[in-house]
């Protein structure tokens, strides 16, 4: 693996818990170039020829293997658009860890737009973890616009954990999924914005086959003058179950707009949406203060727990 500097290593630790070269297949992208790659017998990573990005092919039946594809940006003013396609073979059971860390010390904006497409084969299971993180004192913005498309065949299942806790100035996230019969999708999103950050997160989940189910839960905290918008749409085109939930804490002058949408096109589609936005409850602060915490420490504990 090419030498990474300390900032790049710190970003890798933040987004992928990576301190050394990961086990299994990986591709580390640093400042628009590959800093290391390994394919395994069952997982083949290759560069795309027409656009920037990777094809990741996981053989049918591959079990208990992982793929890490972290991205780090430390050059100010860098803008990139990357297409990564995951082909997950039938009956495979794998973990995919992605994520992007941007450290921008300069005055020009740095932007990473990642388009991830997942083709999940019949009865395959995938766990996908994506963390986004920004740091650096420069005036240039740290911008991340991830697009995630998930195409799920019969009986497949996917768990997706998407986390963006700190330092990303502007994000426009769009996730779409199409589920065939018996497919199951679980999404857990954790989002925190501060300063004058702006985050938009949209979902369109189409439940196209009988017995398909989706559960999308977003927990978010908007601090300072930040703004978040959560658009979650579930479309039930067959006998199916869908649930979305947006649970948010607002602080300071933060603003959150939750826009739930349910579309039932089948009489046996059971769709539920829940949304709750509010400040930290006063009795929660008081309880932790009676344990000896200051008000600020109590707030931190409540938020850490909420976003855990």
């Amino acid at each position, binding site marked *: 693996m090419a030498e990474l500097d300390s900032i790049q290593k710190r970003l890798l630790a933040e987004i992928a818990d990576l301190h050394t070269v990961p086990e299994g297949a990986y591709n580390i992208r640093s400042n628009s170039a590959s800093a290391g790659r390994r394919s395994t017998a069952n997982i083949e990573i290759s560069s795309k020829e027409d656009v920037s990005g990777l094809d990741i092919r996981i053989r049918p039946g591959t079990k208990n293997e992982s793929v890490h594809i972290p991205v780090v940006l430390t050059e100010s003013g860098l803008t990139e658009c990357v297409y990564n396609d995951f082909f997950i073979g039938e009956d495979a059971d794998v973990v995919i860890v992605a994520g992007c860390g941007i450290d921008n010390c300069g005055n020009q904006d740095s932007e990473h737009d990642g388009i991830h497409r997942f083709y999940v084969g019949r009865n395959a299971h995938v766990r996908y973890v994506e963390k986004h993180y920004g740091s650096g004192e420069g005036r240039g913005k740290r911008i991340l616009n991830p697009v995630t498309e998930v195409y799920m065949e019969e009986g497949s299942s996917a768990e997706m954990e998407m986390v963006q806790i700190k330092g990303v100035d502007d994000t426009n996230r769009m996730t779409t999924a199409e589920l065939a019969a018996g497919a199951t999708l679980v999404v857990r999103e954790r989002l925190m914005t501060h300063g004058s950050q702006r985050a938009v997160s949209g979902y369109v989940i189409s439940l196209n086959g009988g017995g398909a189910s989706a559960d999308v839960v977003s927990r978010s905290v908007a601090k300072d003058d930040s703004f978040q918008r959560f658009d979650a749409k579930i479309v039930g085109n067959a006998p199916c179950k869908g649930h979305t939930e947006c649970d948010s804490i607002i602080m300071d002058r933060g603003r959150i707009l939750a826009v739930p949408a349910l579309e039932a096109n089948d009489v046996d589609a059971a769709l539920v949406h829940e949304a709750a936005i509010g400040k930290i409850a006063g009795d929660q602060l*008081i309880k932790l203060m009676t*344990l000896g915490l200051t008000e600020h420490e109590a707030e931190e504990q409540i938020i850490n727990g909420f976003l855990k």
Partner: protein
Amino acid sequence: MLELKNISFNVADEGREKEIIRDLSLTIPDGRLMVVTGPNGGGKSTLARLIAGIERPSSGTILMNGEDITNEGITERARRGISFAFQQPVRFKGIQVLDLIRLAAGKPLSLAEACKYLSSVGLCARDYIQREVNASLSGGELKRIEIATVLARGSSLSVFDEPEAGIDLWSFQNLIEVFQGMRAHIRDSAILIISHQERILNIADEIIVIKDGRLTRQGAREEVLPELIGTAEAVSGCVVSQEVI
């Protein structure tokens, strides 16, 4: 030792001042288990909240070991060793029982040490330690966890606001045993329990009666309890079970 001197507490009620606590003076010496009883709405819970610093008195002073703490906030008083168990325990999303007990202890606590506090309030520690302190727990379970956080603090004054409220009969018996255990190791600390349950009054060293915001009676259990038996200030028999765990 905690001393309340001439404490009054007023609130605005439809544009008029309403007195909740009137010129109340009380000393809570170390080494004592004191139980405060009295009719509902008489000011008992307000007294507990004034001691914890959640409310500030309109007039009067509060001294702890001789030092004036009247103007100190909740955090400062907690750091001086005042603990407060809520009548209605608070729920948190994401915070686990273990987190809460560690925060209460104020120091790194091993899993085994944290479990010890749960076991002492009659909860099977293994089943609860990783649970979130959220709406999935029943009122009785939350109440016991609340008491475990007070035990973990090792306070010099532990205040319990109606610890029996919302718990079932079995837990109630367990609760009495917890308080008896605390009483046995009281040493340089004190316990103040707000309750009108006869069985809790029965383990008091001293009983205090508060009515209409005033302290109307104070004395040793042997003297005061016989006067209260059969009145609303000393309810006997079954606890009104609001929730069965």
